[in-house]
């Protein structure tokens, strides 16, 4: 019997699952999804024939094609927040040293395929910042001991035990040594600058000592601090920078020789055609071509030639990362302050390619609907001159003829201007703000960059768990033509930490006010729902001194009637205090923020906060039970989900989940999990919450789902009020095993909320899995579970079907976020997964029930119908003839 039941269960499950999994067909690959791969801000670079080897601050090793900048192969090393690449050395094979504090991994890679050749470990005792170099096939590790000496450890690859390299350490006395950042490598030498003195040591020689030279013998003015910059040349050389002027110094026979000419700090050396040349970038007076590349002779400093670079607008100031000479031409690799990578080919100074590596770290995302086409907009102008009836009539006729023309012959307008709204809202603009302080607009159809805008000196806010984010708010969408869409970005000033406000048109990237520096630090911001006369939704920004500001500034008159219904909350991750504020006491002249509640969660640490998407629609008000009664959902739009972790002597860590009403501060529900640790991911939607955590006891990731119900009676069917609490909601909960490590979780969002919900889980493996909410929904007790009740029997472990991976074999590196936006088609939502790669796709959780399938055969239908029509006419003729014959018989 039991056996039979299990078979029945499996069968039921399968039948349901067939309807649940919405997989791609193989021919749909790349039809509506795209992926862009990045490597991050380049730290080390090496030219190798037809490719460029880069090691980046994202801890990525990659080779780029010299001619088009495409990634040939890419190896993602450990997490950059812990590990950093310290050394890149290319000599037949690639050697990298990456690590953290006192543990380093030395790896060698095949240059063509990116396959690992060997891997060793270096364990040092000291945990101070140190430097690596490679000399004569041996790794040298230099550890400064402040005020005392320099420890030089030599590791040879032959001497290792179980993969751990054994080094020979020698100590060089250096009592002046303070910081390793004052030192550079110059060929086989190591050069440091102390107070008024220059110290250098030949690393190649055994028992060599630091040689000290007084600084004032080579530099007359002691005006500024001297900074040393590495300069690669066959004679050991380096640049000495003071007052923004660099001098080239060489070590010749234990003496320092200074070249008599001045250089820019970004000068590099290129050897080719028997010439020894210095390349450097200079600012140009020419407004058209801002950058000039100057080439000087290494020995004399005489100008060989200079060429003006047609530098694209919108990029930050460049520096030269590396250069190589290839016979008649030479290539310069430039990196800009906004992390873009450019390859310039000399002598014609043509930019061969550019890569926007800023996109490898996105901190804010927003989807925008495009404006309607000019033609559709022109219909709106019909009543512009109301007196002229004939004019209006002719206007209407002409636009309608145009529309008809477009319908028949295809829309030429759409193809030309490109950024025009389509019928189903599938074509959108994604505005992303990057950590480097650059805004990009991406086209959802192609993934191309529509516009970009660089904001100098801004940085993201530091959120919970050190997560960096900026804030984007949509004040006005594109539907209020002819008024353009309006968007606000909030960020932080890198220097003062004060707020930065940037208003722009998300479709064109045009900003009429530019960057606005706010005189306060931002602690919270919220967008109100009421429009002002220009259809702008006012933005309220709360400063850290609890002062409230409204943007646009005259919006106070619009919101003055709503003061009693505006509430704010803040969550302080340091003090673990949640605070609620009310605007009840505000007047038209002055907005007053009064604290209405606070919750102290100490000694716990807030690890995650889940709010519902603001534009979410809840379609069905309740769930139909098996006795056909309705169980009403508890849909509280003000509900916050807070996850905290507190240390506990008995259970290591205790994870607590609270559901708090953001208006009243009422804790609606609370639960805890013992021996649980983070990372905790929260997904909060409709009347449910899903969170994941790591169960230390069973050493597995678990997923728990909570569902809130009001009961059989609905308290208020028209509007929800947080103050009208008659009884606490009923909670259903269930937990599951997640056989993977989640990095991020999100939920699909559709226009009206009719479509089923899918949970999107970004896994550490680089795949994004969709899990139907139906699979997680807590089962009711004493309720039969089956397809009739649209209920799937409980399974402790969530199945992982490869068909449910929305990015199929396109593995994504280091996923940092999943952004979801509804399309105008109810069935579809837009998904943007970002991290080291950007992946865009569309998902339809209930399949595309509102459009014809893409494999729908229009031609066949037309063919069959026309054949039928022809056949009827032919038979009519034939029949008539036959009837005539019959009549004559």
């Amino acid at each position, binding site marked *: 019997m039991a056996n039979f039941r299990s078979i029945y269960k499996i069968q039921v499950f399968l039948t349901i699952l067939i309807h649940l999994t919405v997989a791609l067909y193989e021919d749909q690959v790349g039809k509506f999804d795209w992926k862009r791969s990045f490597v991050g801000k380049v730290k080390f670079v090496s030219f190798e024939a037809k490719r460029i080897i880069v090691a980046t601050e994202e801890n990525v090793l990659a080779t780029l094609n010299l001619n088009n900048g495409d990634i040939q192969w890419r190896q993602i090393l450990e997490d950059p927040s812990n590990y950093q690449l310290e050394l890149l050395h290319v000599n037949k094979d690639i050697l990298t040293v990456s690590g953290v504090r006192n543990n380093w991994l030395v790896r060698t890679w095949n240059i063509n395929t990116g396959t690992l050749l060997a891997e060793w470990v270096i364990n040092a005792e000291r945990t101070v910042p140190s430097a690596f170099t490679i000399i004569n096939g041996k790794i040298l590790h230099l550890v400064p001991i402040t005020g005392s000496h320099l420890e030089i450890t030599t590791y040879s690859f032959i001497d290792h035990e179980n993969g*751990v390299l054994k080094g020979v350490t020698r100590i060089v006395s250096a009592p002046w040594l303070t910081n390793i950042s004052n030192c550079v490598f110059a060929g086989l030498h190591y050069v440091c600058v102390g107070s008024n003195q220059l110290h250098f040591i030949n690393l190649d020689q055994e028992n060599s000592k630091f040689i000290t030279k007084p600084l004032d013998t080579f530099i007359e003015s002691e005006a500024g601090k001297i900074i040393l910059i590495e300069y690669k040349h066959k004679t050991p050389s380096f640049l000495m920078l003071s007052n923004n002027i660099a001098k080239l110094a060489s070590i010749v026979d234990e003496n320092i020789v200074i070249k008599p000419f001045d250089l820019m700090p970004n000068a590099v050396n290129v050897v080719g055609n028997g010439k020894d040349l210095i390349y450097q970038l200079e600012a140009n007076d020419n407004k058209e071509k801002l950058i000039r590349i100057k080439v000087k002779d290494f020995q004399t400093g005489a100008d060989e030639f200079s060429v003006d670079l047609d530098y694209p607008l919108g990029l930050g100031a460049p520096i030269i990362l590396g250069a190589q000479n290839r016979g008649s031409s030479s290539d310069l690799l430039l990196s800009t302050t906004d992390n873009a990578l450019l390859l310039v080919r000399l002598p014609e100074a043509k930019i061969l390619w550019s890569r926007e590596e800023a996109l490898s770290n996105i901190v804010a995302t927003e989807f925008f609907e495009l404006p309607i086409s000019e033609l559709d907009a022109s219909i709106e102008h019909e009543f512009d001159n109301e007196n002229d009836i004939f004019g209006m009539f002719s206007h209407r006729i002409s636009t309608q003829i145009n529309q008809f023309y477009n319908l028949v012959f295809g829309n030429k307008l759409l193809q030309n201007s490109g950024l025009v709204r389509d019928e189903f809202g599938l074509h959108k603009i994604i505005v992303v703000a990057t950590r480097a302080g650059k805004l990009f607009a991406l086209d959802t159809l192609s993934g191309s960059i529509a516009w970009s805008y660089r904001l100098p000196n801004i940085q993201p806010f530091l959120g919970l768990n050190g997560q960096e984010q900026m804030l984007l708010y949509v004040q006005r969408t594109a539907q209020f033509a002819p008024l353009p869409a309006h968007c606000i970005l909030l960020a932080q000033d890198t220097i003062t930490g004060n707020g930065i406000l940037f208003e722009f048109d998300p479709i064109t990237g045009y900003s009429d006010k530019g960057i606005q520096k706010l005189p306060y630090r931002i602690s919270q911001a919220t967008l109100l729902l009421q429009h002002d006369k220009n259809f702008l939704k006012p933005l309220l920004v709360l400063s850290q001194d609890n002062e409230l500001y409204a943007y646009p500034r005259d919006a106070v008159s619009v919101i003055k009637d709503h003061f009693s219904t505006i509430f704010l909350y803040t969550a302080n991750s340091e003090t673990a205090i949640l605070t609620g504020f009310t605007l009840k006491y505000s007047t038209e002249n002055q907005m007053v923020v009064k604290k209405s509640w606070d919750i102290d969660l100490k000694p716990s640490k807030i690890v995650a906060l889940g709010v519902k998407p603001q534009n979410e629609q809840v379609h069905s008000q309740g769930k139909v039970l098996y006795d056909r009664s309705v169980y009403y959902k508890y849909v509280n739009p003000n509900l916050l989900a807070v996850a905290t972790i507190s240390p506990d002597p008995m259970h290591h860590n205790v994870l607590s989940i609270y559901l708090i009403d953001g208006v009243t501060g009422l804790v609606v529900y609370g639960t805890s999990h013992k021996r649980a640790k983070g990372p905790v991911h929260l997904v909060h939607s409709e009347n449910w919450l899903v969170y994941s955590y790591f169960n230390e006891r069973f050493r597995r990731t678990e997923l728990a789902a909570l569902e809130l119900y009001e009961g059989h009676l609905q308290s208020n069917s028209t509007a929800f009020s947080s103050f009208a609490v008659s009884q606490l909601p009923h909670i259903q909960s269930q937990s599951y095993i997640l056989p993977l490590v989640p990095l991020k979780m999100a939920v699909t969002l559709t226009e009206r909320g009719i479509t089923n919900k899918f949970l999107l889980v970004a896994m550490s*493996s680089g795949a994004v899995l969709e899990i139907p909410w139906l699979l997680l929904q807590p089962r009711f007790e004493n309720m039969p579970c089956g397809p009739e009740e649209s209920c799937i029997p409980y399974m402790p472990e969530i199945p992982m079907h490869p068909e449910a991976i929305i990015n199929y074999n396109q593995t994504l590196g280091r996923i940092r976020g999943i952004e979801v936006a509804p399309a105008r088609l109810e069935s579809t939502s837009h998904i943007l997964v970002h991290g080291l790669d950007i992946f865009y796709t569309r998902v339809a959780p209930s399949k595309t029930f509102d459009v014809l399938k893409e494999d729908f055969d229009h031609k066949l239908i037309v063919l069959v119908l026309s054949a039928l029509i022809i056949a009827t006419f032919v038979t009519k003729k034939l029949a008539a003839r036959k009837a005539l014959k019959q009549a004559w018989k």
Partner: protein
Amino acid sequence: MNLIFLFLFILSVVSGETSLEEDVGSSRYVIEGRVFPLSDYQSTNGNWQSVTRIHVNGGEFIGFVKSDGSFAVHNLPSGSYVVEVLHPEYTFEPVRVEINSKGKFRARKVNHIQISQVVQVPYPLKIKALGKTRYFQVREQWRITDFLFNPMIMMMVCPLLLIMVLPKLMNDPETKKDFEQIQKMTKFEMPEMSDVVTNFFSSNGNQAGIKDSNGKDKETSKKGQKPRKRAPVKE
């Protein structure tokens, strides 16, 4: 039941101890193993090693595969780890590796549900591809049989066959006669049908046409009735 609980308790205590030692233990260990892809893939794609990664505890520690398929993940303190082999095209089974504080290794299958169940696997690890990952649904292909066995097509084709092909196949005179009779019957039926069609189509034509067809209708109906009456007499 109690036993299970006791066991779980012991297990939790043990794991607690190991996790405590994680912080204390300074010695670092290496997880070693070898990846065996499917043989067909090895031959078709010589560069499979560079796209294969080893994730320990979901990317906390990372290993890469050498050209001979071997891998080593360095710098691990003692503890319990899940070793996954990641490849965009192939699925591999994860393995749990436990390193105790004395540096002893034990590898077993990952079982999230029954944690107490230990199915040991050899260490150093030998991880074989389970198979090609199937990311895509298979699209239904157009086949001639599907088309022919479509009920609509069957409805059209079968009567056609009966009417057109069968009489030609039959050479037996008696059956031929019978068949002719049937044909006669159908012949008389047929004009009715065609008239209906012509009626339908010419109704929106000119009035004269309608009249004509009406006239014909009467005639044909008369003719149609006669053989019907005759037929039973003959029988």
